[in-house]
């Protein structure tokens, strides 16, 4: 049996989404890599390649592009899945918020993976708040089977409500492997384009947009009712209540297996938003104390605090649970005053941390060495380099110590330019090729005609290394692309970051840094991991 025909699967929850989308008859899958969301796209891509039945899997240049492609696919009548991580959603917010006004044709499901405890992210933002902000519905599973089933239901819900639907996972579920039983796979669905009468919904000029906006705000009760059946309030014999969502629900269910008392609690299981206020009011009327276990922000908790009457609400706001960081089985126990098992094996040696590092033979290390030396030879000891997001973020650490900021995808390009305008000279930034095409390229347009000493260094390794070597959306000739933006040829410099060219590269960098004009330097060398994969694939 082929892997995509198996009826029972042992998969990551991310991949449960891949299979859910395929079984829902998805036409197009779009996304931008970002831990812990990447495998949802990759899983679907693998099946789509194997099926070869006209479906599409397309990595876009960034999350906004991916979202817009999904919206286009939906407009054409096909079901569309778009995948990204939580911070990627910020990039996609513009089309996302407005697509709540245009509505959709083919079901549109947005899978967003949040990363509490920031295992591989720069913040802990909660996508439920952004779904709320856009007035959209969110489904939040807590097991692998639910993840699969909710993916299929999300497409149905999207078409029923004619709105995009969020599917929210957090790291622990996204990156855990569990069992999924599949249902019968649907054929690829085509609902056709929006009708002639509907077309003005898609033109958000004020006259039509006001109408659409009013409609969206008016249907909020409809959205609540549409997902009401996902959420369940179970009265227990106990006036202690728990509200559980996502991993909070997974950990609480596990705890129920081992502890009889918690089984008697009154519980509200939240699997979908917006949460109907009636649940909250009923629970607050019955319970004296309510504990809230949800990942990231105290989102449900704040709704309870607003309507609590005499019930005492314990969660992140009153510091019963730390305000940041993911939930753990131990945190649930501590909150509920349940004893944790004794830790018997204490160790008497100190364990130094093992920080992640650049791979042996990575070109980034040679690039950093050259940049640092160029600054030092120019007698700039306290030099500053704007960094970006990718493997090269590790350039902040020893032994490189060569970048000094990491803010958002593409931020180095704008920050380098802004600092140059403010008088920093030379102003230097470092960015990888995938991140450059993600959202750095827009800021580079400002360099073309400027007269400031802004120097952008692009580490071109032809891949998105950090997330597992996805191909960069752009082809090979990055120099031509930059020329095309209007940067004069003599201000574009290609170098190869190999030890044998080190002295030459340092000399060239010094010349460039000294020149009071914008320059773009391209350090081109293949990612060592990508090279390894390429060699084993051609074996």
């Amino acid at each position, binding site marked *: 049996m082929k892997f995509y025909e198996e009826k029972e699967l042992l998969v990551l929850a991310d991949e449960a989404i891949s299979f859910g989308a395929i079984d829902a008859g998805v036409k197009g899958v779009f996304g931008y890599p970002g831990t*812990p969301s990447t495998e949802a796209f990759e899983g679907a891509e693998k099946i789509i390649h194997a099926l070869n039945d006209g479906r599409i899997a397309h990595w876009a240049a960034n999350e906004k592009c991916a979202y817009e492609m999904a919206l286009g696919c939906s407009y054409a009548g096909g079901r569309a899945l778009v995948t990204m991580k939580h911070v990627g959603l910020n990039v996609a917010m513009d089309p996302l918020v407005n697509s709540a006004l245009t509505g959709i044709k083919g079901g549109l499901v947005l899978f967003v993976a949040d990363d509490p405890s920031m*295992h591989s992210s720069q913040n802990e933002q909660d996508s439920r708040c952004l779904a709320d902000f856009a007035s959209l519905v969110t489904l939040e599973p807590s097991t692998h089977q639910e993840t699969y089933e909710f993916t299929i239901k999300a497409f149905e819900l999207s078409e029923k409500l004619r709105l995009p639907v969020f599917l929210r996972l957090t790291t622990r579920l996204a*990156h855990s492997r569990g069992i999924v039983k599949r249902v019968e796979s649907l054929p690829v669905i085509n609902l056709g384009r929006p009708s002639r009468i509907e077309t003005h919904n898609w033109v958000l000029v004020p006259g039509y947009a006001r109408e659409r906006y009013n409609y969206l705000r008016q249907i909020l009760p409809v959205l609540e009712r549409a997902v009401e059946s996902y959420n369940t309030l179970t009265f227990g014999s106990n006036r202690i209540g728990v509200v559980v969502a996502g991993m909070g629900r997974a950990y609480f269910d596990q705890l129920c*297996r081992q502890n009889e008392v918690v089984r008697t609690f009154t519980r509200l299981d939240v699997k979908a938003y917006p949460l109907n206020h009636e649940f909250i009011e009923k629970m607050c009327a019955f319970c004296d104390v309510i504990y809230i276990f949800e990942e990231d922000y105290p989102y449900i908790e704040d709704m309870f605090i607003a309507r609590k009457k005499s019930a005492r609400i314990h969660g992140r706001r009153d510091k019963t649970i730390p305000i940041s960081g993911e939930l753990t089985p131990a945190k649930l126990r501590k909150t509920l005053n349940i004893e944790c098992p004794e830790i018997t094996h204490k*160790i008497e*040696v100190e364990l130094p941390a093992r920080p992640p*590092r650049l791979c042996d033979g990575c070109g980034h290390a040679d690039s950093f060495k050259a940049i640092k030396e160029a600054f030092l030879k120019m007698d700039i000891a306290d030099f500053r380099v704007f960094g970006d997001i990718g493997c090269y973020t590790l350039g902040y650490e020893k032994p490189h110590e060569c970048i000094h900021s990491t803010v958002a995808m593409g931020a180095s390009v704008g920050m380098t330019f802004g600092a140059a305008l403010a008088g920093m000279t030379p102003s230097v930034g470092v960015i990888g090729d995938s991140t450059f095409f993600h959202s750095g390229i827009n800021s580079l347009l400002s360099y073309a005609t400027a007269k400031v000493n802004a120097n952008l260094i692009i580490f071109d390794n032809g891949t998105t290394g950090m997330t597992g070597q996805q191909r960069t959306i752009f082809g090979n000739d990055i120099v031509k692309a930059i020329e095309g933006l209007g940067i004069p040829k003599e201000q574009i410099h290609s170098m190869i970051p190999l030890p044998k060219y080190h002295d030459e590269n340092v000399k060239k960098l010094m010349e460039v840094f000294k020149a009071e004009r914008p320059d773009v330097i391209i350090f081109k060398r293949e990612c060592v991991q990508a090279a390894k994969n390429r060699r084993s694939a051609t074996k």
Partner: protein
Amino acid sequence: MDNVNISKPFSVIIAGVGGQGIVTLSQLVMSAAWKSGYYAIQSEVHGMSQRGGSVNAQILFDKFPVTSPTVLEGTAKLLIGMEPLESLRYFNLLEKNVSVICSSSPVRNMPIYPNVDRLLAEIKKIEDSLIVDTDKISEELGSKGAGNIVLLGAASKKLPFTNEIWYQTIKERFASKEQSIIDKNIEAFNYGRKL
């Protein structure tokens, strides 16, 4: 061998460094649990871990549905350590009567690596511990990657799955490879099983 406690899942920790093959090993344990009819769940850490940092995988299986992919401190019954320092990093997760199978070969991709003998002495404080010289055995078996499967073979004695299930799991995992690679892995597994 039926040492799955009715009141809590059987928890396994696999510890090591990014690139050592932790995910593969944990998938083998997970598959074997699944094939043996258990409910199973396994968590793994991706992302920064690809860059040679600390990595751990956790597998929980039970006769009843398991919903938590995360092991509670003080409850892991088995630790498979692919590297001494990383094995010690998760000692807070281990229960009193834990079994530990650990490689003695350090991965020194860091500025200062502690004294290996001290680390191993610390691991040996666990009554049911077995230190395996995976470098030496890999050389003996003539295969660089054999060490992991040898560890798995040694660990398999602590897990309630039959040899048939293990062989089937290994064969399926390496099905896309040549027969000689499957044979080598079975040989490494049997070697570990005898330790």
